[in-house]
């Protein structure tokens, strides 16, 4: 996994609440057996018209959002299906961080597993960011610093956020979680012996 320490990048604003993972990556694209190849299907039904042309009205197709790597999203982003294809698609499209008032639980975990930083800010802070992005009159950039746990722009916006310390360390160092767990092999084995004894009705 690519570590996430601090990232500065262009912002794309998607001010819609309850965006579900069926929108992020529609089901017809879940049939691949690889982890790659999903980026071009991101927000497929919204980003592209039925004839395959770009939908000029969709937020990610606005000129200012071209090349964006930070997504401003509405509340409860990523609800619904557990498909990890959603963060795979977001990552491959170029997003490194997603900022929202709230995230669905499974999607949040799936982002961290893929080196995408999900940042929870308050409703007021999100409203301010959406307003600044809209008022920028051109591309709007933010810096998301995980070491300091701060989101900032160059015009005075400054907000603190907090990530679970375990997840923060994992992202900062780009750690392989399976490798981390295998360190505890002895405890897993001990737990399994206790479990087997309990199921067999004998005191361990």
């Amino acid at each position, binding site marked *: 996994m690519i570590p996430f320490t601090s990232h500065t990048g262009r912002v794309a604003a998607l001010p819609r609440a309850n965006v579900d993972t069926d929108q992020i990556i529609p089901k017809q694209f879940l*049939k691949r057996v690889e982890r790659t190849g999903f980026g071009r299907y991101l927000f497929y039904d919204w980003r592209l018209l039925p004839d395959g042309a770009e939908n000029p009205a969709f937020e990610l197709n606005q000129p200012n959002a071209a090349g964006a790597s930070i997504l401003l999203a509405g*509340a409860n982003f990523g609800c619904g*299906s557990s498909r990890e294809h959603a963060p795979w698609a977001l990552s491959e499209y170029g997003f490194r961080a997603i900022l929202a008032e709230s995230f669905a639980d499974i999607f949040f975990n799936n982002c961290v597993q893929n080196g995408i930083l999900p940042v929870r800010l308050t409703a007021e802070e999100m409203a301010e960011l959406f307003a600044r992005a809209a008022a920028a009159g051109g591309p709007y950039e933010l810096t998301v610093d995980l070491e300091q746990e701060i989101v900032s722009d160059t015009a005075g916006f400054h907000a603190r956020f907090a990530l679970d310390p*375990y997840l923060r360390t994992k992202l900062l160092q780009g750690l392989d979680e399976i490798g981390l767990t295998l360190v*505890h092999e002895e*405890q897993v084995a001990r*737990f*399994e012996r206790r479990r087997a004894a309990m199921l067999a009705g004998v005191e361990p």
Partner: protein
Amino acid sequence: MSGRTLFEKVWDAHIVHRHPEGPVLLYVDLHLVHEVTSPQAFDGLRMAGRRVRRPDLTVATVDHNVPTDDRALPIADEVSRRQVDALVANAEEFGIELFDLHSPRQGIVHVIGPELGLTTPGSVIVCGDSHTSTHGAFGALAFGIGTSEVEHVLATQTLVASRPRTMEVRFNGLPGYGIGPKDLILALIGRIGTAGGTGHVIEYTGEAIRALSMEGRMTVCNMSIEAGARAGMIAPDETTLEYLRGRPRAPRGRDWERAVQRWLPLTTDADASYDTTVHLDASAIAPQVTWGTNPGMVTEIGGRVPDPDDFAAEADRRTAERALAYMDLKPGTPLEGLPVDRVFVGSCTNARIEDLREAARVVEGRRVSNRVRAMVVPGSMQVKAQAEREGLDRIFIAAGFEWRNAGCSMCLGMNPDILQPGERCASTSNRNFEGRQGRGGRTHLMSPAMAAAAAIEGCIVDVRRLGRTEGSGLRAERVAQSSVLSPQS
């Protein structure tokens, strides 16, 4: 020491290790695997040279993109076939039991787990599928995970997890005539919203929950994720034991007696407390129908499509406007009388034997409206066989329903069963998201009885007007015949 909730008892009993930063390493008793969210996980194991730690606690089936018509033919969609073939090869390579397309026990993963007796009280159960919450109906802690976590569980039989908060949802009173478990859960989601349960495990309690059969409890727990909750749970009781006794993989003999001793204390202690509590009056709930593009956009059958201007917050107003545009509905339109093109009875929410019985009671002796194409997709091949033993297939077919093989089918339209753009569907599934059942398709979620009634009338209708629905999903004496499987196997 103060008492513990059901969730806390199960959680505490599965902690292998506590990370100093907070999360724990949680042991997994049962890992269910399907074709869509597993291939990349198996690839990861191969690349790292890892094995599956406990193939004996891992069970696989194909459900998401399998065809529900003729199974003698190869899968026509080449990409779907590749995914199904990949699971067959992975199960073989890693020594995992697989209920494949030709198995008499194949079915939706959340239908076959309980049916086989694999789902047991007090277990931790995970699967790369958000509707894993279904299994909580047995007092298991069951939740959906992503593919990276699937790989983690395959390799270690554990999961790194932070402790969720607890929420009690109490349904007081008994539901009225024609009201089933789907109405209870939709009413809850309408009340607390699709993010109302975020970060929580819900425990469902109260008279209405106790009165539900296991099938009904599974319907309720299944849609916990639609309220944003991590999981839903119901404490095991005599109904749970009756369902499990004699199932092929349930404990037997002395093992069974020991298991019952472990299971029955799995209730929330009287002096335990929840982080949040929500009370609903089950007796006041009417049949529920969704009008929008998420399950929280729901009202009772007598209701009307809301006016976006009535929403206080700007974001909610815009969301409602978008939903109405997508659904092609005008504010103030009564839901009753809205014409439908398709009816889908199926999914891990509502494709168990009781759901099919409930729909068949409404359909018997009637004809599907000639403007409607209706289909029944049983949740498993065992449900299908049971329904055929009871003659339900003949009732559906005589009425003009298509009678299919088991799978997820039109709940998410990964197989050929999809809506055409603009088609309106009365569906017993769990998600009315844009495009979920097919790009441009419009989904109205409701109970099996309500969907059956819509098929007959050609429009959304209050099933109570058609008669023949008797508190669907309720335990009563019918539980005796609700055993899908014969005891031997």
